[in-house]
């Protein structure tokens, strides 16, 4: 199916600094939205709903959320979960791109990766494994990971492909466990990130 977009070029809204390895979280106008079906993981503390906070506490709560988001993004970079490609995506959105662009890309990635990992697992359960098929799936996952800047998942996929070429079921099962773990870890972080951004946006709607 072909698609057709007509994009009216919009003026720059100003250069936005990225919140990486910074303590000044006030410069982080993220504008993403959490898809309604996603839930926050339990590994990160999320502040209470905005309507339960007194109006006078709202600025403090927003600052706390931004600090939390800054810390989360910094940890994602320092742990190697994401790389500069993810920064590029943030910059594209922040420099006047489509609002919700990063959220859309992240959600697409999570859906794709989840589906591909399940396909790989199903193929590796077959009595006779088609390693070319597994390799094609891993190649696809590597591409999606590279697109979103999911560095750790991408590197694991590169190692995974070697096991495919060696036609090693044991190696592939081991690599599958690693890539699944890497992906779940990243997905949890992405979900927390999107939820924090949604809450920050709710405090400061003019950032939309």
């Amino acid at each position, binding site marked *: *199916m*072909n*698609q*057709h*977009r*007509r*994009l*009216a*070029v*919009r*003026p*720059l809204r100003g250069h936005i600094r990225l919140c990486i390895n910074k303590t000044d979280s006030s410069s982080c106008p993220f504008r993403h939205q959490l898809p309604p079906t996603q839930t926050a993981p339990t590994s990160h503390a999320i502040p209470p709903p905005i309507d339960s906070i007194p109006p006078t506490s709202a600025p403090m709560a927003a600052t706390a959320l931004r600090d939390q988001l800054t810390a989360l993004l910094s940890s994602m970079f320092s742990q190697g979960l994401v790389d500069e*490609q993810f920064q*590029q*995506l943030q910059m*594209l*959105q922040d*420099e*006047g*791109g*489509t609002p919700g*662009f990063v959220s*859309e*890309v992240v959600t*697409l*990635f999570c859906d*794709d990766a989840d589906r591909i990992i399940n396909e790989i697992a199903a193929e590796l359960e077959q009595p006779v494994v088609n390693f070319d098929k597994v390799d094609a799936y891993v190649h*696809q996952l590597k*591409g*999606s990971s*590279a*697109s*979103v800047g999911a560095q750790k998942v991408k590197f694991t996929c590169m190692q995974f492909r070697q096991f495919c070429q060696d036609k090693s079921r044991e190696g592939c099962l081991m690599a599958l466990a690693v890539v699944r773990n890497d992906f779940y870890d990243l997905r949890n972080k992405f979900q927390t990130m999107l939820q924090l951004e949604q809450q920050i946006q709710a405090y400061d709607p003019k950032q939309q």
Partner: protein
Amino acid sequence: MAHRKMMRVLLVEDEEINRLELAQVVARAALKAAAGGGDDDLVLDEAENGAAAVQRVRDAATAAAAPYDLILMDKQMPVMDGHEATRRIRGMGVTTPIVAVSSDGLPADVEAFVAAGADDFTSKPLSKEKLGDILAKFRLA
């Protein structure tokens, strides 16, 4: 440099996530071109495989619509890959710049694309800086 009212780009890519990102990059590059006195509007068509791209180009050639200014072509796609699509588009006599955008950047891959008729090759991911260079090279910025 002449001021053009519109730039028409065909984006050929099977992965939705890549199409989404490329569309943003192209829009940003077009914005920069507009700021520099270039295009002030962008029409971005998308094709999910090579066959759809060939059809798009054929439609543009036969319709009253202006031809494409630039085609960004992925390599690995279902139905028809980027090499074959490039060959067929050139076979139609279309001279629009075709730039291959692929994660397979080995010399053999680049040569295969050029042999098929591509004008240039760039590796994924396509950044706005890389696209800016491409637009400048083909005098679209």
